[in-house]
């Protein structure tokens, strides 16, 4: 098997720390926002922030950014399948 360069990639302490700080800030934001009542918009905002946090963890803590295309594509397919599971169920429950 060919030696892939991605295995050599390494996150520096500084990069990791930056990611951690952003994550903590985002946690603060999401808790703060939850005290503000915006009616229907609360859910998408909370989930949007969660998605952003998750992306940070995935890309940097879990190295997804530096992984091979196979892992990236398959990860997106998994998320796609999850989205189908949730959204297609709504064809039923939302129109019942």
């Amino acid at each position, binding site marked *: 098997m060919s030696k892939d360069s991605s295995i050599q990639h*390494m996150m520096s302490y500084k990069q990791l720390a930056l990611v951690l700080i952003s994550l903590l800030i985002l946690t603060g934001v999401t808790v703060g926002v939850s005290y503000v009542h915006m009616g229907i918009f609360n859910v998408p905002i909370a989930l949007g922030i969660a998605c952003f946090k998750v992306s940070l963890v995935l890309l940097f803590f879990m190295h997804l950014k530096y992984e091979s295309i196979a892992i990236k594509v398959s990860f997106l397919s998994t998320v796609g399948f999850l989205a189908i599971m949730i959204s297609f169920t709504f064809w039923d429950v939302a129109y019942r």
Partner: protein
Amino acid sequence: MNKPIDFIGIRLGMWLFLYSEIILFGGMFVLYAAYFHAYPTDFVEGGRQLNRVIGAINTIILLLSSFTVAASITAIRLGSKKLSLSLIGFSFICGIVFLINKYFEWGAKFHHDIYPNSETLINGPPGQNIFFGLYYVITGLHGLHVIIGMTLLAISFVLVASNKIHAERFAMLENSGLYWHLVDLIWIFVFPLFYLVL
């Protein structure tokens, strides 16, 4: 045959396994979405009864431990075994603290007669029962994953200490790390969905 170890393949295998874990929790999120649609007000009411502060503290604990696990990989690759060991150890302790928090949180709820099949839930509004049912199942399964993750970290700790994991060969630590991050990922969604609904 003496072939070089294929680290990429091992990582690919681990990622595939993580996908299955994501879908496992995905099944729960399908239920959450459908029931949230059916009982929005009860879910908001239920969310108010959970302690945001404990939830936020647990989030921070998991984020911190995720960072230390990621840093421990960097440390082992730079050759500082001691630092790596203490970082893994710290992550493990974070896991314990998380579980203790969870224990008190569940305990408080039990104390208020809120647990599966309790009088309060059965006689209360159905949406409330569903909300707490999902809460117990999801956080319970998540707690189980925390324990599995801690086991993996503990094994990695021993392997690092005995020099089985070193700068050239750290797939086991990397995979334990990936698993630990997954536990974190799920919590990042659980936190707003249960503690911060609306």
